[in-house]
């Protein structure tokens, strides 16, 4: 273990087109050694140097935690996003050197569970690829239910079926196949834990259905990274540092703060871990809170902002940074 360092110098060893929307990227250490061991559900933050700007995006590790000679991630192309996925799809080729972070797990398995029930939608399948490998290697009891748009976009459905057989169930939208969630939930043994990763509408639906069916919140886990959204540019004053910064249309507030030379702490860059929480000293305008961290009271009070995903529209914003 190299103590105190969070950054790994990696090289892209392979880029595989999975389907029309998804590409898979393989990373190895530049020095050829093993990458850090991780637990299923962990993500790595990939640093993308694109001309004079740097984006940092989190991606779930999907390779087996039992084999760390490489890390793999899958990136779904988002044509209207801020450009991170387009950069990965269009610019990153085998041989490309990139900095990735040590793995961080904000979506870990509850190892006390008698059974793990996993629900995935679309690209939300990636953390489950690692988790099912981890559990299968230790004889764990799990079941995966995976909804896809159609056969062609069913990333890794074939691999999962091949690895885990009947424990994997696929639902194709274009074949009118639908997961009967209430029935599925009603049949699970006491002590089952439920995990969901996918579009936010799906996460909300699963959480609500489970709550209505009497599932305690302790047994329901979800991966809910919000990707930073583009928006109108805005100006911010960082009071502690005594500088003014400009947040561009395709840039997050956190990235703009980093570009100015500051290093606020972060783990997820997706509005869930709470690390980059920043106090608001004064503001004249409205916040666009996109995080899942701040309480509704905090959001209403306008006293805090999560710069990784949230934005601002108005005359002035002064932050304690």
């Amino acid at each position, binding site marked *: *273990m190299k103590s105190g360092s969070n950054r790994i110098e990696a090289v892209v060893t392979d880029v595989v087109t999975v389907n029309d929307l998804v590409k898979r990227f393989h990373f190895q250490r530049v020095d050829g050694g093993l990458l*850090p061991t991780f*637990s299923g559900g962990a993500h790595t933050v990939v640093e993308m140097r694109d001309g004079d700007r740097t984006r940092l995006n989190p991606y779930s590790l999907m390779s087996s935690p039992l084999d760390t000679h490489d890390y793999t991630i899958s990136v779904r192309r988002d044509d209207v996003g801020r450009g991170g996925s387009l950069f990965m799809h269009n610019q990153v080729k085998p041989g490309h050197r990139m900095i990735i972070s*040590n793995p961080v797990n904000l979506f870990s398995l509850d*190892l006390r569970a008698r059974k793990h029930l996993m629900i995935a939608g679309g690209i939300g399948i990636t953390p489950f690829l690692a988790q099912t490998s981890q559990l299968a290697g230790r004889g764990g009891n799990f079941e995966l239910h995976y909804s896809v748009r159609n056969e062609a976009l069913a990333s890794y459905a074939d691999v999962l079926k091949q690895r885990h057989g009947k424990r994997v169930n696929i639902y194709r939208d274009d074949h009118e196949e639908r997961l009967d969630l209430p029935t599925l939930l009603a049949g699970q043994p006491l002590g089952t834990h439920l995990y969901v990763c996918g579009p936010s509408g799906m996460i909300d639906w699963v959480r609500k259905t489970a709550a209505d069916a009497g599932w305690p919140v302790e047994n329901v886990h979800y991966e809910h990274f919000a990707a930073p959204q583009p928006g109108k540019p805005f100006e911010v004053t960082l009071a502690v540092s005594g500088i003014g910064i400009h947040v561009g249309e395709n840039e997050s507030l956190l990235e703009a703060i980093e570009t100015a030379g500051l290093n606020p702490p972060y783990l997820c860059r997706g509005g869930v871990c709470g690390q980059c929480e920043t106090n608001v000293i004064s503001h004249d305008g409205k916040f666009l809170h996109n995080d899942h961290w701040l309480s509704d009271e905090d959001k209403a009070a306008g006293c805090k902002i999560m710069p990784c995903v949230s934005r601002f529209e108005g005359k002035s914003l002064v932050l304690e940074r």
Partner: protein
Amino acid sequence: MGINFKQETFRDDYTFRNSPEQIRRFPFPFHEDGYMYSVNIEPHVPTRKNSVFEHLFDVDEHYVSEMRDRAIVLAEDPLRCQSLPHMTLAGWDTLELLMTEKAASYPDLFTLTRDGDKWHWINRPLGIDDHFTFGDTATLPYSPLEYITRQSQGDFAVCDQRENNLWMDAGMVTTQADWSLDFDIGMNFFEWHAPVPLAHEMGVFTRALKFLTSIQQGQPARRLNWTMTINPRLDTSPENFHKWGTDRATVTPENVGQKVHLRVEVQMFFRLPRSNAILFPIRCYLISMDELTTSPKWARRFHRVLRDLPNELAEYKGLVRYRPTVVEWLSKRDDGAPTSPGFGPD
């Protein structure tokens, strides 16, 4: 190379002593002439040569004898090492971390050879040479946690992380400052700290927990804590309090120097990779008042800290009965001169 492992005891005839070199590297915990709780957590990075922070896991001259004392405690009371069923994976994580770090820090003492999951571990000071299969508990004489912590100085608590809290679900605890693993196992961070006075109200634990739950792989942290112990006894457990408690009434002005020890805990925090648990090693260092006061700065400063310690803390740390005697003894070694900043002995 050249750790001269001592043959000594931490019970009965108490032959434990620190060599002059060991005194110089003692982790004195006070950076100023007073003490109050603070979160005081810093990155656990290898630092100065010839300090206890030279390596992530310090091995010192007391290693062999401390491990013998641990074996005695476990023979008397096997409940000092426990693990709830879901923590086996964290046990393997702990074994891997300790073996790889020890072999890297002290190649002349420890050797680890890995061929896939076939591992070969050599511990020369303890005369151990074992082949086993990583991940297969049946190939070790003990659980992975017990196996490796019978070979590692300090106590080890292993905490599962769930719902933004830490749950003490496994551990090896034989050198503790008055807390019981058997009683506390399964508790969350706030519950196992329940008996600590003042700190809850100060919000110390809420802040500390927020920090600890966000510790990342490859970025361990540490903090120091302290108390005092009469006689160099490692096993100051509540289980045996009725046996060692009377020691506290034996302090006299004549024997303070030999009998009274400052006990410093280096608490470390590591994120474990497979289980996502937090490993919490608690390494105990003992130093007698005679040994401590070989540094005039430490003598002055410890006098001022102990004299001004709030009563609640003295009560919690169990110092009430002998504090006046020790303060009086130390006052004769404090000329009132200012002390230099920092922890070092000067």
